[in-house]
């Protein structure tokens, strides 16, 4: 593989891996604290992307304000999903499978609400309207101002989230709730408040991921759904419990989808159309060979492993 191609694919890995990490951490957090594999997470991403698109079309071009809008809308979508659907179902003590199906249903509803919105105002496949500037160009490698926003922002948010979980009283209570829910209740942790806060954070980060994604590609109602299997693959690589494992998993998935795929294409003429199969292969392989993912390897005090 020519070095220029390799470099480009590694840059893509870094960029996409950071976005996957931002989304996959939300999956890991909801699974640990709420015991819920939330497939509607995909639509929190899309909702954030549309919030970012609309506010940018309205003339707000400051990336920070755009991301703030995406955070608010993603957070609201997540909190409302919890209050209107997941919480009432949990109070009826429904099974794990009912909750998974409910998360698919919420995702479907949100997705088609976004379709309605996009159809009414002709908002399909538009890019968030921040002016594009090329910062660096060599051969096929192009680094834009959007890359300079997306990667550091994702990394910073991942870092802040880790800090929140490991150093703040709220994070401690979230981990306590993930670890032993009945003891958490007995010692007086305000379980509902902690859950609401968790949903706001998870949804907000998904929304920001959507905005960053929409700055680099284009916004459409299916964008979150298109990424969700890769994102779940990353979370499963983290054992759905380990934070550091999830972050590592996100980069492994992005590396496989970009660099390894490109290598297979270049060396063995494997068609690039096989790319979507990669996360499925990763999920199946992990579940068969090492269901705990990276979590046991990276175990530290701060992880969410039960």
């Amino acid at each position, binding site marked *: 593989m020519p070095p220029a191609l390799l470099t480009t694919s590694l840059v893509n890995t870094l960029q996409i891996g950071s976005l996957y990490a931002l989304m996959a951490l939300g999956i890991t957090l909801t699974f640990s604290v709420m015991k819920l594999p939330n497939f509607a997470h995909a639509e929190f991403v899309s909702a954030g992307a549309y919030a970012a698109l609309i506010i940018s079309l309205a003339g707000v071009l400051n990336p920070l304000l755009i991301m703030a809008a995406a955070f608010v809308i993603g957070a609201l979508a997540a909190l409302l999903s919890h209050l209107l659907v997941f919480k009432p179902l949990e109070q009826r003590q429904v099974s794990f499978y009912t909750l998974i199906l409910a998360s698919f249903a919420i995702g479907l509803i949100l997705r088609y609400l976004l379709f309605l919105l996009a159809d009414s105002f002709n908002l399909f496949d538009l890019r968030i309207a921040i002016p594009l500037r090329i910062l660096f160009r060599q051969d096929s490698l192009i680094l834009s101002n959007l890359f300079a926003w997306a990667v550091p922002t994702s990394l910073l948010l991942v870092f802040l989230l880790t800090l929140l979980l490991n150093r703040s009283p709220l994070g*401690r209570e979230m981990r306590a709730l993930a*670890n032993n829910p009945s003891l*958490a209740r007995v*010692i*007086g*942790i305000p379980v509902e408040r902690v859950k609401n806060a968790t949903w706001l954070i998870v949804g907000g980060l998904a929304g920001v991921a959507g905005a960053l994604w929409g700055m680099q590609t284009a916004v459409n109602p299916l964008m979150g759904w298109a990424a969700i299997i890769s994102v779940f693959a990353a979370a499963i690589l983290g054992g759905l419990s380990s934070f550091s494992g999830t972050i590592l998993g996100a980069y492994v998935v992005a590396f496989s989808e970009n660099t390894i795929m490109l290598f297979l294409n270049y060396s063995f003429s494997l068609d690039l159309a096989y790319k979507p199969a990669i996360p499925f292969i990763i999920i199946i392989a992990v579940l068969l060979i090492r269901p705990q993912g990276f979590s046991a390897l990276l175990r530290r*005090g701060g*992880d969410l492993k039960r």
Partner: protein
Amino acid sequence: MITVQNLTAGYGKLEILQDLSLSFAHGQFSAVLGPNGSGKSTLMKAIMGLNTVFGGAIALNGRELIGSATEAISALGIAYVPQRENIFDELTVRENLQLGMRRRPREQRASALQETLEIFPILGRRGSQRAGLLSGGEHQMLAIAIAWLGAPTLMLLDEPSAGLAPAVATDVFRSLQDLRGRGITLIVVEQNARRILRYCDYAFVLREGRLAFEGSAEACLQDEETIKGYLGVH
């Protein structure tokens, strides 16, 4: 302090405690003894609202507890240390202790933590360790410390010495005596009667869901019939 009247309780449709009446005195260290299946743990869970109560009454200082949620009961100052899953094993020892102090006013926390480390010095040395890696005795001490940090007036403990070596169990009972000395009322369920009777003040012996004996720890130890008949010789 806590009065149980004509209590019938169990799990699902199964009645284990049968028309049980007894009362625990304020400031006392009481042991609840009896063979397996006699209803010792069922009594604790009934007080905490964790199982099915078919009839009767449980009152804390005259206030009825039956029908209240577990969180509400623990907010009244009753701490419960179950036999298993009584710590946050994925968090560090220090984080466990910090979580235990949630119910205390902020300005009390530093002194409460200091007092805890005086009662359980080993926990101070294990502060940054993951709680799941503690030894059996340290694990029980942490569970007791978490419960005590919630500033309870009454503590219920379900077999705190289960699975511990005799010397370690003795350490646990000594620390319970220490807590009693600091004004906490203690109710402890135990399998090993002879061992706890050397540390507690008062004993209740249950058999098949009914009260078979009650009296001071000394009287219980001297009552050969109770010891041999209901408790086995340890």
